[in-house]
């Protein structure tokens, strides 16, 4: 196997996808034997974009700089992988999309409680784009590897598969439930509980207990660590293929279907609750048209209504 040249780039993100590669631990040597890393902000000081077979791009498009860097990566690489939930869906930065660019600037610079100055930076920095968008809104993407961060096993398998010219073995369409060992069973729970409420039964499905776990509608790119450790899934790897590809299937209706059958909570009450807490439940994926442009998806309306109700309750 000859080594193939690869470029890595990060846009607006936390750098966690790059750290997750280091967490291949000993296995990273197997990868390094097969590839030649050229541009990679973590490891090398290569500043330009040399020609490469493969390009891994993490992060969302938040600034003009991000857009430019994405275009340079496309020009320099034969294949582009959108790497991590930010590149694939916009990720957590995309949760800024229910706010205007100005509201974000205000929160940080002009109306911030511990900030004495009242002007945002004016020189040297790259302007924010009006909204956050995923990588494929700017360039063509050949492969998608969501996950926040994708578990190193998926990264490893994806890279080896590409080198060996086969399909990745691990990239199945399974949901987070596939590896979860909790038992789905009928209960008489009749109201939704916040994740912090009570102490959940470690052996029973969160939905059966009234917790809004997103495992059944979330793609497994993580090995299900959350439900295995007592935490309901929060959907960081994005929705399953069924939800992404069918216009009328949605995270909230899918969860409501299952949960209403497992509990005494009415389906409509579950749909309504997820809409009321839409920013919590759609935080990682709202910036992608695959979710954001579904005919049934009205996140701006839901979040505005919820905020208006709060402000009304607290103004008198």
């Amino acid at each position, binding site marked *: 196997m000859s080594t193939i040249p690869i470029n890595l780039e990060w846009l607006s993100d936390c750098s966690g996808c790059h750290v997750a590669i280091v967490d291949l631990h000993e296995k990273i040597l197997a990868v390094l034997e097969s590839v030649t890393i050229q541009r990679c902000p973590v490891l090398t000081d290569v500043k330009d974009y040399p020609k490469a077979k493969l390009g891994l791009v993490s992060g969302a498009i938040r600034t003009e700089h991000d857009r430019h860097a994405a275009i340079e990566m496309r020009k320099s690489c034969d294949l582009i992988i959108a790497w991590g939930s930010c590149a694939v869906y916009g990720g957590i930065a995309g949760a800024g999309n229910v706010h205007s660019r100005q509201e974000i600037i205000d929160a940080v610079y002009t109306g911030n409680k511990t900030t004495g100055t009242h002007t945002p930076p004016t020189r040297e920095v790259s302007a924010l784009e009006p909204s956050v968008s995923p990588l494929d809104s700017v360039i063509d993407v050949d492969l998608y590897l969501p996950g926040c961060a994708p578990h190193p096993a998926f990264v490893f398998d994806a890279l080896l598969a590409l080198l060996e010219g086969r399909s990745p073995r691990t990239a199945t369409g399974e949901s987070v439930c596939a590896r979860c060992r909790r038992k789905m069973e009928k209960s008489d729970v009749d109201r939704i509980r916040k994740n912090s409420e009570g*102490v959940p039964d470690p052996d029973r499905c969160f939905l059966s207990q009234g917790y809004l776990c997103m495992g059944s509608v979330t793609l497994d790119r993580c090995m299900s660590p959350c439900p295995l450790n007592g*935490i309901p899934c929060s959907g960081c790897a994005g929705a399953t293929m069924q939800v992404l590809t069918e216009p009328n299937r949605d995270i909230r209706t899918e969860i409501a279907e299952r949960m209403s059958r497992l509990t005494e909570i009415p389906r409509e009450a579950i749909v309504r609750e997820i809409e009321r807490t839409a920013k919590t439940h759609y935080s990682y994926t709202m910036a992608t048209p695959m979710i954001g442009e579904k005919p049934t998806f009205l996140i701006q309306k839901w979040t505005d209504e919820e905020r208006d109700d709060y402000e009304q309750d607290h103004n008198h």
Partner: protein
Amino acid sequence: MNKTITIDPVTRIEGHARVFIDLDDAGALKAAGLVVNELRGFEKILTGMDADRMPLVTARICGVCPTAHHLAATNALDNAAGVEPPPAAKLLRELMYMGHLVHSHCLSLFVLQGPDLVLGLDADPAIRNVVGVVQAVPDIAKKALRCRSIGQKINELVGGRGTHPVTSVAGGIAFVLDADRERQLNAWIQEAHGLVLELAPVVKQLLMKMLDANPAMLEQWVIPAWSVGTVKGDGTIALVNGEIRAIDESGARKAQFPTADYDTHLSESAVEFSYMKQVSFVEGETRHDYRVGPLARLNVSDRYGTPLADQEREEFVRTMGRPCHANALQPYARLIELLYCTERAQEIMASPEIHGETRVPVKFSGGRGVGHVEAPRGTLIHDYEIDENGIVRAANLIVATQQNYALINTMIAQAATSHVINRPDDQALLNAVEFGIRCYDPCLSCATHALGAMPLEIVVNRAERPHVIRRNC
């Protein structure tokens, strides 16, 4: 090194971290600083979300120190709900954190600073990286990387995940320690401790050698400033729970306060050339620059509380003085913390309380929750306003690198004065600036929510004519 006098549009907006130096027609310094070029705006992103998501969502601020955000968030939520987590939960959180610090400090010492220490500041930039270190000292490098790996594995076994841990929740920890995990943790902690004992003297020797070869580091590259860190009631260093203490340049204690009072002592200000804000310590009408991180923690605290770390601390204070303001000694302080982490992890595992219940129920009845930890790079504060339905209505964050930012910019100005204005020596300037910045180990992901490493580029604007100095391997 590649020199050019035009700024290609690619490089103009390229690189999350860039340094600029503006000189006037006479060649005198007008302005200089580190430009950080990403903003995500978590202060706004967090509003309207369920409070119980904060430990998960805020970890995504930074992939380099997610565990620090994860735990600062749970401290804030505990305070908002007015609950005290069970002793076992506190110990497990601290253990997760010790693993994280071992990973983070090893990364900083061996991968980021290792090349300077092993190969020297004047080594060819093309080999001055971690690969060069592996080739120069394969046995040491292998052990150092193994130690980082174990730290991350401990973090993952307790935190559920390595990058972006999940198990710390309002009211405690979401799982109970079983015999399998306990056995594995003990084995890893023993191994890490053994590795640290082997590595510490080697790193210290390399650092001392570099200081001997570059006397300017201890003579000129010294910026007296206040220090801020976290201590327990008796003055012992605290990383996960404690009060914030500030001392002045001479070491006199100026303030000690609970986290929630941070907003009466610390004041942020925007910088015109960067998305990262800087922070100063307010004392009446005066604002003081201050440093946070391992060296500041050593300066403010009276002891670490574990035998080997305290022994090394005495040696540090005897030879270098306290408070110490030499940035070049940040790696030494980081090394002492590494010793502390593996010693403390053993104490935690030996504590019988680690086997108890790990979680108490929580209800948010409306109010403010402020929490902080000592992140690998310094004090990290999360402040949430939470309504009676458990929704975050306002959020404020002060992260470590912001607090070192004023000193980083001062250091750049000093380097520009000594290396550009009187001695137009690009290589010396690059070395001085780069080494100085790296001593602070700035985590720019946290600060503005972009990146951690440094493809460094310096732009010198001499009478409006830009001159770019950058590394091109």
